[in-house]
């Protein structure tokens, strides 16, 4: 029933969050899985967003692949690439890990800016032929990208949900609640985190590919923008409720509601969002969803385990 209710909300909200086929919901869910559950607070996820975008361009232009195949392959490549990266930056703890991820994103940005066949620092556009291979008409492409975005969001949420329901998800939740206790119970923290990092990187690259399939143009600064792909995403998750599956969804809905009223202000909008996120972090660290859940004892996704007490008067 809760799933059905969720589906209703998703569909009802679709015109807002998918009307312009926005993929931030997926990015928010993925970042939340890393930061909220695995304790891997990254401010460098734009590395994989941009990587996915650039792989779409490179694999379609030079590899002759169909865009969808290119995007999926980008995910696989990102997963492979994320293993050595993790081996390096997992040596940094906490906040230093965060800045380490940012360094990696900068390395990606500067490297792609050096590749002149992809337009170097000024970037390049997706050739018309490749764009046409998706759908002939503009409206056809827009409909397709809407459904791809929706499909991606549903896939990401379902995967994250199933992952958290699994044995590994249980381990992850244990790590979130107490690293020491989790490790005492025999959970391999490093390995669990690595798995999360690799899976998140792969999905993030796929989302990045879809994002730049919508934009049809890529440049290093746009592809590896910390504001667009990380700051907004972090604020969405924090406001919605970090460490809960519902949080990013609520946050994304709030994000678009706020944008309706503040869109004209551009930089001010980002500042307001940042200020709201700071207040939420200090005053209600579980976010909007945390407040709702505590007040009404709700759970959209049955992830928690509770002791059942059938006695009256409870």
């Amino acid at each position, binding site marked *: 029933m809760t799933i059905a209710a969720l589906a209703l909300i998703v569909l009802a909200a679709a015109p807002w969050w998918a009307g312009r086929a926005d993929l931030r919901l997926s990015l928010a869910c993925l970042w939340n899985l890393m*930061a909220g559950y695995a*304790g891997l*607070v990254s*401010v460098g996820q734009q590395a994989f967003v941009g990587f996915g975008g650039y792989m779409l361009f490179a694999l379609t232009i030079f590899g002759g692949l169909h865009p969808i195949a290119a995007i999926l392959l980008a995910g696989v490549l990102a997963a492979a690439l994320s293993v050595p990266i993790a081996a*390096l*930056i997992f*040596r*940094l703890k*906490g*906040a*230093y890990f*965060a*800045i*380490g991820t*940012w*360094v990696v994103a*900068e*390395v990606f940005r*500067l*490297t792609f*800016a*050096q590749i002149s066949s992809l337009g170097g620092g000024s970037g390049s556009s997706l050739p018309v032929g490749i764009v046409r291979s998706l759908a002939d008409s503009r409206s056809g492409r827009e409909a397709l990208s809407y459904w791809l975005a929706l499909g991606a969001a549903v896939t990401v949420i379902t995967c994250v949900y199933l992952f958290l329901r699994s044995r590994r998800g249980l381990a992850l939740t244990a790590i979130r609640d107490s690293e020491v206790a989790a490790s005492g119970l025999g959970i391999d923290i490093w390995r669990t985190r690595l798995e999360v990092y690799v899976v998140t990187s792969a999905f993030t690259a796929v989302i990045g590919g879809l994002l730049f399939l919508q934009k049809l143009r890529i440049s290093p600064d746009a592809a590896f923008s*910390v*504001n667009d792909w990380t*700051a907004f995403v*972090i*604020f969405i998750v*924090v406001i919605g409720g*970090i460490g809960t599956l519902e949080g990013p969804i609520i946050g994304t809905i709030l994000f678009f509601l706020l944008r309706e009223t503040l869109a004209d202000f551009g*930089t*001010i909008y*980002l*500042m307001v969002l*940042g*200020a709201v*996120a*700071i207040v939420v*972090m*200090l005053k209600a*660290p579980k976010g909007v969803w945390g407040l709702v859940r505590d007040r009404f004892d709700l759970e959209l996704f049955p992830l928690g385990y509770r002791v059942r007490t059938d006695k009256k008067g409870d």
Partner: protein
Amino acid sequence: MIEWVNAIVQGILLGGLYALFAAGLSLIFGVMRLVNIAHGDLIILAAYLGLSTTTILGIHPFVALLIVMPAMAGIGYILQRGLLNHTLGGDILPPLLVTFGLSVIVQNALLEGYTADPQKLNAGAVETASIAVGELSLGVLPLLTFGMAVAVIAGLQWIFYSTALGRGFRAVSNNQDIAQLMGLNKAHVFGLAMALALAVTAIAGILLGVRTSFDPAIGGGRLIFGFEAVIIGGLGNSWGTLAGGVILGVAQTIGAKIDPGWQVLAGHIAFLVVLAVRPNGLFPRVEH
């Protein structure tokens, strides 16, 4: 050959600036285990404060330090007591996300207030003056920056180990609760530490603004340079941080010598190599 020697010497001097970026960062980490992601944006804020002071009062940027340093120290104290103290505790998320939010806010506030146009502080003749040493020509400004970095680190060491304030810093760093029991107000001590860190940031910001042009978007990059200097040098080692800055600076100038597009990338690669080979940095602090 002389070109390469020149690149290395310029890199060493550039390292002084990076050590200045790093000094404030490692000071607050040392005292309160806080990593301030907004640090880079605060450096840029200091540069813009310098710009406003010099244009309004018509004074030299170095004289403007007399105003910008106390102003940044004041901002630091208020920021710490009003906001950052509330984030400290066992959980790593609040300080990280709050300073990240702060970084975005400062950056966009600067964008609103000063536009995205690159600006520069005009320091007159000192910018182009140089001293000839053999075949090398050393800029006065880079030399001054490097000297300043040495002086700042020595000064911070002196404060840390020879003054009552430093004793307070070390006490709260060792054990906050016991320091509190001994009559230190840790909220106040943290405020003073942040004030001192941002006073150093003011020096870094002004020297940055005199050396190159700046715009509101470059704060993140400065944070990264400071952070890399800290990690290369080894956490908690002040002179190591200077060495880290120098290594980063030399890597960048050598990278730039090979290909101008490689300057920053070469620095990042040097950092990643150190991280791979010596995860605790080249000069980790020896625990006594």
